[in-house]
């Protein structure tokens, strides 16, 4: 079996969520099939500047074929077009212009797929919202499998994407919340789909004492791992934790791991270790009492899964449907939506050892059952087998014509998003379909 993994950026040093996801999947599927990665020469997701050489190379033993990006992203144009399609009545042409502006605009990659898609059994397209996925999946629709990595942002409300979700052979979702959202947005319930997610290579014997000694960390602490950014909810986390520090009963220190894009409050019990390697990261997570996950937007939190793999409870932002749903389904984490809840839940995990231990055990079991690599690999291979047995692919939705592209009748994407179902997917939320969130809450949120 020959597979193509098509992703916007690819490399050992590229740690973006979808890109890392694609690399892990490519490397693990390489054990079962011949995998080739098709990507661009860009490494920066803001500019899409060509920084790597085009042509064929290899990363961790997986062949990588790179294509040039035709033009870099102009942030002003992209911002203007984003405002247009997200907030105003617009046309299909406006959305296609937005997609061009977003990038990475690589017609060479799309041309290659159009000519050579037949060489592969299946093409896995990562991140539905980028140029390569939209045009590439149309070019190789008969073999396209989409890994959307969709978050609850306004892009899901654009009208160009529902045909994409309906035209691919299969969709590999990250979470039940994502699946419910895409079903509601595109009506692609007929397309084969499975909630897969991603595994993680967690070390079997992390050394908690090692990181304590190395960074001189004393006492119990809660750890946050990730970009220290407002978009990740860190500002709110700092405010809440400062409030928690005023409580004399609380003894936890906050340890932050990751690149700092936000001023970190100066306090003896707030420590920033900076960007650390995986060894230190896992040691710190093993040494911590719990993992804090304050992000509002996640399609799947790998860090949370890693914490669960290490038997640590997670305290997540309950405003993120995916995180909340994961906590509920796993019974391995608590969540908060206000300071009072943050304080109480943090205190509960800190002071109730039995609760903390049980949550951690549940997390470890949840990870083993759902996100261990053999499970993930098996889900992909089962899907390939299923698609091979199924009949010929469906006919693509025709491309919009000249008049269709110019008709100004599409609603603002944010309005569409607001009508999509929200809330965590729990078995009891709907009667007919398990793992689907409730609908009609109208809580559309846009990534800041």
């Amino acid at each position: 079996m020959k597979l193509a993994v098509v992703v916007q950026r690819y490399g050992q040093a590229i740690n973006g969520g979808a890109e890392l996801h694609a690399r892990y999947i490519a490397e693990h599927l390489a054990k079962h099939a011949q995998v080739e990665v098709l990507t661009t020469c860009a490494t920066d997701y803001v500019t899409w500047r060509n920084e790597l050489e085009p042509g064929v190379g290899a990363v961790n033993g997986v062949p990588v074929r790179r294509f040039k990006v035709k033009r870099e992203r102009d942030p002003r144009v992209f911002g203007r077009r984003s405002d247009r399609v997200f907030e105003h009545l617009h046309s299909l042409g406006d959305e296609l212009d937005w997609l061009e502006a977003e990038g990475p605009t690589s017609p060479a990659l799309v041309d290659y797929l159009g000519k050579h898609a037949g060489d592969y059994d299946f093409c896995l397209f990562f991140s539905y919202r980028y140029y390569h996925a939209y045009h590439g999946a149309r070019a190789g629709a008969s073999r396209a499998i989409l890994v959307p990595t969709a978050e609850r942002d306004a892009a899901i409300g654009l009208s160009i994407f529902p045909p994409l979700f309906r035209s691919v052979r299969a969709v590999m979702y990250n979470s039940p919340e994502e699946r419910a959202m895409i079903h509601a947005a595109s009506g692609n319930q007929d397309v084969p789909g499975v909630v897969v997610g991603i595994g993680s290579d967690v070390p079997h014997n992390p050394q908690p004492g090692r990181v304590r000694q190395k960074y001189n960390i004393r006492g119990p602490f809660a750890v946050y791992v990730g970009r220290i950014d407002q978009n990740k909810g860190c500002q709110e986390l700092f405010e809440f934790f400062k409030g928690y520090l005023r409580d004399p009963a609380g003894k936890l220190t906050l340890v932050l791991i990751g690149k700092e894009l936000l001023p970190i409050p100066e306090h003896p019990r707030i420590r920033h270790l900076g960007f650390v390697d995986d060894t230190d990261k896992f040691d710190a997570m093993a040494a911590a009492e719990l993992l804090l996950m304050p992000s509002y937007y996640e399609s799947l939190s790998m860090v949370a899964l890693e914490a669960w793999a290490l038997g640590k409870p997670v305290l997540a932002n309950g405003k993120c449907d995916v995180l909340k749903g994961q906590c509920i389904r796993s019974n391995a984490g608590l969540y908060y939506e206000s300071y009072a809840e943050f304080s109480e839940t943090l205190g509960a995990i800190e002071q109730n050892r039995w609760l903390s231990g049980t949550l951690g055990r549940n997390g470890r079991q949840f990870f083993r059952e759902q996100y261990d690599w053999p499970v993930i690999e098996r889900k992909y291979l089962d899907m390939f087998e299923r698609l091979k047995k199924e009949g010929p692919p469906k006919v693509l939705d025709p491309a919009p014509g000249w008049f269709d592209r110019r008709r100004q009748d599409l609603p603002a994407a944010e309005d569409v998003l607001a009508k999509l179902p929200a809330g965590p997917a729990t078995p009891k939320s709907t009667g007919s379909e398990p793992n689907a969130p409730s609908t009609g809450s109208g809580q559309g949120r846009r990534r800041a």
Partner: protein
Amino acid sequence: MPDFNVRSDSVNVEQIMEQIRARIREKRGVDYTEQQIRDLAAVKLEKFLDPNGVRSDLLEQFRRVQPAYEPPELPNYEFEGSTLYETHRGPLRFIRKLLNPLLKLFFNPNKLIQALHIQAKLNMMFAEREARREAARRATDQLTYELIHNLVVETTRLGIEVKNLKMRVESVGSRLEFNERRARALESVVVYKSGEGDVVPPAPSRPPAPPPVAPRPQQPPSPVQTSQPSRASQPSPAAIAGGGPSPEGPGQRSRRRRRRRGRRGGGSAAGIIGGQAVPQPGAPEASGPGGHDAADERAGTDAVHEGPETNAVVTEDLEQFSGPDVHPAEPVSRPADAENADAGQSPAKTDPDTQ
């Protein structure tokens, strides 16, 4: 300190979150949502608008200026080169145009036209600037209105916070009072125990003890005197053998308690004034015959003289923490009380109420 009632081996996160939210609601007293706070603020805002309710009608004025600002229609200030000669009559316009060179022989109308043109422009500029200023002023008013509204919202929030804090203070105060009472009761128990050690059984060789001397009513209680009830709580062999008043039963004790409560409710004051207990509304009826009752009545009257509040509280504490409810086998009344009652003496210092 969070505590959760998770009884099974497996946890249910949703259940735990429900418990946590219930705890938060309990702590906060009333769980107001943002919308509720706004509603409350709006109510107060309306009240604020009411000149009868509150003194200021500032917001009323804001409301009055609330209608959208429409800039006034400006007059036509345009003054062009042909304005002087314009007319709706065609022949006249033709004649004026024909004679225009002639007019220019007498004076230079261009200067006049230029000046008027500038003046028209200036007028236009000033009018526009005035309109802009007016719009800005109205926008500032809107902002001020919003500011006041936000202040009212915040004040409401603070009011709720203060209410919650008051509730907490009350809760802490009641706990403190309870602890103080418990401490006093425990201190009494300690005294009782030390008094027990002081009791030395009379040696057979010693002469019999002198008859008990009635204590002076105004004498402050001494530690030895306070230990007397404890002695009395253990009926002396003499009392038992001499057929003295036997320890009262639970029914009598409860009657005494009721009477005491009645006295606290005002009966004692009647006793002071009239020397006779007058039934008070809500007070228990007069007790039935029996020496105990009479003694109790007197004891109650005397206790009022000595400070009814202290006596009542201390007795209640004692009963609560070391009294018959806790130690059912331990009698409360003492033979000494009965003896005093029979002798017509005030048992003020030996009454358990004084402890």
